[in-house]
């Protein structure tokens, strides 16, 4: 073991505070430091992951108070996998936005990377933490930096998007607090494992109240319909890499939190059905809304929401297969949707309104970016032999094993809608005449490396899904093993 | 054997007999004479019993029937039709107008003497000639065919330059392809 989970929270937070300081000394450092930090964290995450795969979860106690009293961080196969994914995506986003524009001023860059580090801190913290109030704190860290990042461009629309996000985010934190209050007032503990072990003591009415408020609060972050009004706006108006970070990092953390709550904290079977129903509705509404979008990133945002709905459905099956499918879907979605956001923002780089019709015929001028976007499109709609296919297959297999014919049919029908709008964009990119008034922007080298890395992963996972399925199986087994989690946390000395 | 004169004679005889009894007529209804064709063909006079029958296109026809006056405008078409017919082919001038212009002798837009433009084998006079006269004209043509004397086409071939000259006098804008034998 080369490090402890606490570093995942501490180092980026520290880096976030140090960035402005170092920036005074060496201006380039605001760009370099996050990279170094994230690279280190990635190495650390991979090492820890390997350790965890062999030795079981690491439970880190902060400030020496043992659970259930103290705050603890849990780096299990499940959370570790997500942390690794998030840190990796953070690195990709950093790489991409190293010089997003060719000449970025110092001030915006400083703020941007600072906020990005905060975002990663919060998200990683959400995944790692074993304490429900700590979760609240991390959510708030994430949210506040997300508000700021959404409003990063000084246009009026980004402020509007950010404000909507903020409104819903405040409600979310309010609900979360209420839920925490209910749980604490009933059980007198904030430790998740402890809550999970004592949940049977709680009165059902309070239990249901708590789960409703928790679910709503986390649902807002996890883009569940009808709580996701902020999402399309925020995705569309945030800078491209931030969109990728939302899709790949923030939402994943929120999903993790809600799933952890439903799987580990509560023992309500109705919650699973609720997940399926809500997930299905989210999927359908989002995909149908996406098909009529005129703005590229907004379309991607709706698609992202839809995918989250699908993840919810997969989690809602409650079987290990379902969890595996959901995790696979989350992984693929993180990779592919990031790829789409990253390449898509170069496709509409110079356009004011980011309209889909402005990508007409752009394939000739931005061959690699366009190709990667198309690759991402193919992958996300689940065309083999790309990564998305395997996750879709596992979702469907899990559904079939749970005897959910209707779910299979609906998912597939919605997939057809998904196919339609992605293919429309692909058609425009390659087979339409270019609009002369649209000027293209060639991606920088860093951005290209970032995108190509993601593209390569899409292909690798597509051709060789075994590259990740091993981890995913462990992670899903880990999530399903509620007793094991409680045991691991509470018996720690 | 084919070059043998006697056998050629026999072949000619048979062929001429066949041609004589199978006359497919392309009735070019240029003038008022066209009205005399139906009575000729239908039940009262029934030209078909002589083997005379209408042909649909010049490619299939043996006889070109110029029925009546021929305007300068129509001449071009008639020449065209005649040249599209397959050998052996015959022309029957029908009515006085084809002989000397008839009642249109001083018209500015009809041709007077058909023979200057197309090699006429048989003229049928009258204005109009009655079906009886038409039938007798066909009989005359049959006679000529049987004797091998209905060689207007050969005449046309031999004197093509002369005919062309006459034709071109009437038709100023000559757009037809030159007739290649």
């Amino acid at each position: 073991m080369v490090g402890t989970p606490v570093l995942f929270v501490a180092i980026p937070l520290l880096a976030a505070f140090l960035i402005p300081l170092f920036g005074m000394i060496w201006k380039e450092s605001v760009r370099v430091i996050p990279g170094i930090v994230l690279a280190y964290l990635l190495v650390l995450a991979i090492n820890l992951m390997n350790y965890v795969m062999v030795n079981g979860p690491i439970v880190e106690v902060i400030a020496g108070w043992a659970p259930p009293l103290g705050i603890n961080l849990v780096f299990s196969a499940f959370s570790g996998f997500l942390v690794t994914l998030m840190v990796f995506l953070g690195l990709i986003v950093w790489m991409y936005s190293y010089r997003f524009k060719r000449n970025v001023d110092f001030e915006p860059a400083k703020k941007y990377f600072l906020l990005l580090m905060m975002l990663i801190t919060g998200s990683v913290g959400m995944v790692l933490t074993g304490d429900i109030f700590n979760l609240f704190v991390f959510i708030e860290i994430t949210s506040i930096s997300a508000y700021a990042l959404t409003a990063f461009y000084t246009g009026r629309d980004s402020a509007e998007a950010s404000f909507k996000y903020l409104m819903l985010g405040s409600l979310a934190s309010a609900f979360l607090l209420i839920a925490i209050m209910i749980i604490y007032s009933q059980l007198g503990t904030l430790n998740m494992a402890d809550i999970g072990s004592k949940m049977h003591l709680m009165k059902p009415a309070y239990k249901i109240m708590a789960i409703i408020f928790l679910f709503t609060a986390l649902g807002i972050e996890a883009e569940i319909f009808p709580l996701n009004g902020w999402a399309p706006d925020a995705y569309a108006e945030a800078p491209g890499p931030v969109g990728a970070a939302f899709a790949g990092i923030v939402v994943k953390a929120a999903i993790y939190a809600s799933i952890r709550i439903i799987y580990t904290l509560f023992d309500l079977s109705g919650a699973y059905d609720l997940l399926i129903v809500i997930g299905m509705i989210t999927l359908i509404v989002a995909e149908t809304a996406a098909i009529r979008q005129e703005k590229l990133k907004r379309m991607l945002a709706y698609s992202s929401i839809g995918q989250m709905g699908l993840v919810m459905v997969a989690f809602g099956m409650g079987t290990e297969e379902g969890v595996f499918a959901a995790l696979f879907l989350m992984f693929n979605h993180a990779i592919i949707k990031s790829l789409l956001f990253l390449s898509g923002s170069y496709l509409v780089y110079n356009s004011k309104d980011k309209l889909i019709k402005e990508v007409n015929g752009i394939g000739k001028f931005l061959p690699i970016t366009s190709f990667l976007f198309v690759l991402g499109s193919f992958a996300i709609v689940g065309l083999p032999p790309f990564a998305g296919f395997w996750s879709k297959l596992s979702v469907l297999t899990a559904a079939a094993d749970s005897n959910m014919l209707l779910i299979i049919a609906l998912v597939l029908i919605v997939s057809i809608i998904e196919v339609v709008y992605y293919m429309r964009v692909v058609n425009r990119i390659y087979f339409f005449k270019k609009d002369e008034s649209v000027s293209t922007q060639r991606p920088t080298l860093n951005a290209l490396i970032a995108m190509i890395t993601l593209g390569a992963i899409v292909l690798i996972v597509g051709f060789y899904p075994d590259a990740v399925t091993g981890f995913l199986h462990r992670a899903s087994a880990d999530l399903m093993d509620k007793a094991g989690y409680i045991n691991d946390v509470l018996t720690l000395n | 054997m084919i070059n043998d004169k006697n056998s050629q004679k026999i072949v000619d005889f048979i062929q001429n007999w066949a041609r004589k009894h199978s006359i497919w007529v392309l009735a070019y209804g240029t003038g008022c004479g066209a009205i005399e064709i139906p009575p000729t063909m239908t039940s009262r006079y029934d030209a078909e019993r002589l083997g005379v029958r209408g042909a649909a296109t010049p490619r299939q026809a043996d006889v070109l029937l110029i029925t009546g006056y021929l305007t300068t405008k129509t001449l071009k078409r008639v020449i065209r039709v005649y040249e599209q017919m397959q050998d052996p082919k015959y022309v029957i001038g029908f009515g006085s107008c084809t002989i000397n212009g008839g009642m249109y002798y001083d018209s500015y837009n009809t041709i007077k003497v058909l023979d200057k433009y197309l090699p006429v084998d048989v003229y049928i006079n009258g204005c109009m000639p009655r079906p009886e006269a038409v039938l007798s004209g066909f009989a005359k043509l049959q006679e000529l065919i049987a004797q091998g004397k209905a060689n207007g086409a050969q005449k046309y071939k031999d004197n093509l330059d002369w005919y062309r000259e006459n034709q071109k006098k009437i038709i100023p804008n000559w757009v037809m392809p030159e007739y290649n034998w």
Partner: protein
Amino acid sequence: METIFLIFILFLGGAIVTWMAGKLGNIVQDILFLATILVPSYLFYTNVATGYAIDFNVGGIELSWGINAFGWLFSLIVLGLGAFAAFYAVSFMKGKERRGAFYLNFILSIMAMLGILMSQDLISFFIFWEIMTWSSYIMVVYNGNDVQRIGIKYFVFSAIGAYAMLMAIVLIKSMTGSFMIESLISSYTSFSYDMQILIPVLLLTGFGVKAAIMPLHVWAPGAYSNAPMAYTSIFSGSLSKMGIYGMVIVFTTMLSYVPEGVWFRGVVAWLGGFTAVFGTLWAIKQDDAKKLLAYSSVAQLGYIIVGVAIGTPLAMMAGLFLAVMHAIFKGTLFMVVGAIERQTGTSNFTEVTGLIRKMPWTFVAALMSIIALAGIPPLGGFVGKWMLYESLITSDHYLLVIVIFFSSTAAFLYCYKFLFGFFLGQEEEEWAHVKEAPALMVVPMVILAGLTFLLGTYPGIILKPIANGMQTLGYGMTQGQLWDTSIILNEWGNQVVLQPILYAILGIFVFFVIFVTIKGYKNTRYVTTKDISSSGEVPLAHENLTFSQGFFQPFLRAVEPAMRRQIDKYYTAIANGLESLFDFTRRIYTGNGQTYAIFVIVFVVILLIFKNSIFG
């Protein structure tokens, strides 16, 4: 290394290398392209024997690749036609844009089709199926004409088919615990009644889309006509046969075990019959050669489906034989259209006329393929049709015979239209400059056209592999003599030896051609097509007297009631309705943050109200 892997790696690597090689020069790219098609084909036929199989494991899923005699039969269509089309494509694509992408998708399609034939498990079947779908999709939109309508339509229908198949696959997996086709077949009878119905329906939907069966065919005309012709020849020739391949497996294995199979057979056969009729009628109506051939493909696939669905040994043979023949002649015909389009710039009958003297070899290829298509005796199409009729009569599908015969007679109409529209009619000055297509395009066409003759004379050449394939599918050896030689012996004992008939036909033909030609040869002269008997008028150079507008107007007037309703329109209406609905759903996102906040509160309130029924 296993040869199968080598083949696929060669295909895949070759595809990518060819794609990238655009910078190295066109010649290099062409050679790479041809090598990528030919080398794996060579390896396949030399090193992969029937019965070869290999199992491996990807992502925790057992996969198995192998080839049986039935797949081998289709591999002839795929790789054989593919090789010819590849040579054609090299010349066809000369000087065109995005050749790399074309070559890439061409190779990928061929690889995917071979993969489908090699897949012994449903997952790799599906993977290759989808690779085939998207690579062909890219080809459909390749020219950029009307891609949002035609391309999306193609993809949506493909997706419907593929997802129906996927649903069947996951259901099968959950029931049998395995993705193997064999385990599906062996445990099919133990499924519940619902599943016994549902799974064939889903699978047949999936295959039916590719085979362009009646209600699912609407993508085909647009897609076939929109793709580059060099690709359409394998699109229509081989790719659609993959649907047939799947259907055959469903019919011969699963559906023959259950009593409901009879109904399936009847329904699908009748759908095939209707496909044939309406495909033909619409083909007659088309003025664009590509569209005409596209509808014709739909119709011809209808015959094949009828044969396959009836499923008696003779019918199956007929269907498979027609499948092979259709690959050959329709491949050729699309190549012909491609050649004409390349040389003249249009494929519209109303524009191009009188090419016979300019493109004689193309005409020969077109003529022979058309004769084969029409099913007229000397050439191969007849054998298939004949067997089809025999099988339909012997299996008591009398009305279906009439339907098929009607469509096959009506097919003469568009056959003639195709030949007349392009090659016959008046020669126009506008097309005086047209030259014969390059040798690289003509030679594949002519060879393929020659194949139709060869297979018409010696159908045993292809009937033997078909028989082998059918044995793999469980048809017994009892009818062995049926496909022993090129003698066709129908079930009622009428024996027709084809070769003497063909020789007689040829002999009579040659005799009369010579008679007509040399009689009075010296006095027979050639005249141009302007020298026609048109009431003495001389058509001027710019006057086109060719009859090409409203070619079969009287016929179409007669059948107009049947063609008044188009399935396509209903689909379009549904699609438009859905889009309007979706436009409505997205208005949920009003753009007002407060509304969203109210949504949240409402959500919570609803959950709180229904908490007992949800969590109770």
